């Protein structure tokens, strides 16, 4: 190490300031996400809901960037290394767009051509209480074995 003692100290201070900054950013973004999430519970307008969901996705991407760039230190690596990692991840752009589009198209096709599928989306049902596990065991009055593994369905 060719650094002098004071050099090292200044570098340390800088690194600690960066960690502090990123911690605050991640916490603030998470809190904003949660506030938006709470707000969404009582939201009725579908358009507004979609806009809030878009905002949450943007905040999620920003958090991912800060974790990868600063906590995983990728920003301070050589450009070669950054590119070998970031460029292949661009596949996700196609991956997400293609598959969500496909899913949406499949739903439209089924609503058009599968009357049963479409009908199911209009019939309201009652909630069934306790299908397995604790509820069933309580019925047979053996509460102590409630943690038994799931029954076969």
């Amino acid at each position, binding site marked *: *190490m*060719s650094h002098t003692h004071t050099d090292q100290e200044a570098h*340390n201070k800088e*690194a600690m300031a960066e*960690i502090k900054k990123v*911690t605050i950013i*991640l*916490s603030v973004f*998470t809190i904003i*996400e949660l506030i*938006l*999430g*709470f707000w*969404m*519970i009582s939201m009725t307008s579908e358009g507004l809901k979609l806009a809030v*969901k878009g905002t*949450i*996705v943007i905040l*999620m991407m920003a*958090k*991912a960037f800060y*974790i*990868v760039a600063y*906590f*995983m230190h990728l920003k301070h*690596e*050589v450009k*070669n*290394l950054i590119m*070998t990692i970031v460029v*292949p*991840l661009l596949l996700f752009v196609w*991956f*997400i767009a293609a*598959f*969500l589009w496909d*899913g949406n198209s*499949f*739903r439209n096709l*089924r609503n058009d051509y599968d009357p049963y*599928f*479409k009908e*199911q*989306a*209009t*019939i*309201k*049902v009652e*909630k*069934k*209480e*306790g*299908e*397995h*596990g*604790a*509820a069933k065991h309580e019925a047979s009055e053996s509460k102590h074995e409630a*943690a038994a593994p*799931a029954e076969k*369905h």
Partner: protein
Amino acid sequence: MSTTTTASPNEAKLWGGGKSPFNSEYGKVMMWYFLMSDAFTFGAFLISYGTVRFSTNGWPNSNEVFRSFPFAPEGVHAPLVFVSIMTFILIISSVTMVLAVHAGKNMDKQGVVRNMILTIIGGLAFLSCQAWEWNHLFHEGAWWGANPFLNADGTASTTNFTNFFFTITGFHGFHVFSGVVINVIMLIMTLMDKFEQRGHYLMIEKAGLYWHFVDLVWVFVFTIFYLL
């Protein structure tokens, strides 16, 4: 370690041999490549969840499903509260991991030990929270192949929701578990002065990369399952 690769006037010389083109050691580069492949695995899981959700007319409301809290009296509903605690636990344990890596760079053994212990505690706390949540959902009748929850609009729901939830959070939880195991091994190696003998704490950095990745995946899982 301190090979100078930056500001080379001739780019071609970077790959001409005798230098480290990535200015990084082998293990760290391989850890990055492993994490990339893992990112695609998680990506495939989450995108298939999205595809199935997009191809279905109704879907359960996450605020209805995830509304319980340990020790809360019956009938008290607190959507998002428990999962936000889990999220903060993981963020804080990520910060302590950064501090451990930072201490390692300064050859500060005490700092590494202290922060690794905090990180391990954070990981165990997260796993406990997840175990509680899984147990709770199981007792509500949810499991692979069983979905007691209705769609948000009151229509019958398929088991897709629970299948994806347990598979993806389970796969993530398994990553947290292996991360804790790796961190414990790193802590033991630190206490045995392995890294002092080697003269560097690069292993802590690699374990750190893995741990941050686990936190990174949770950012996505948390948002997609609990918020969207």
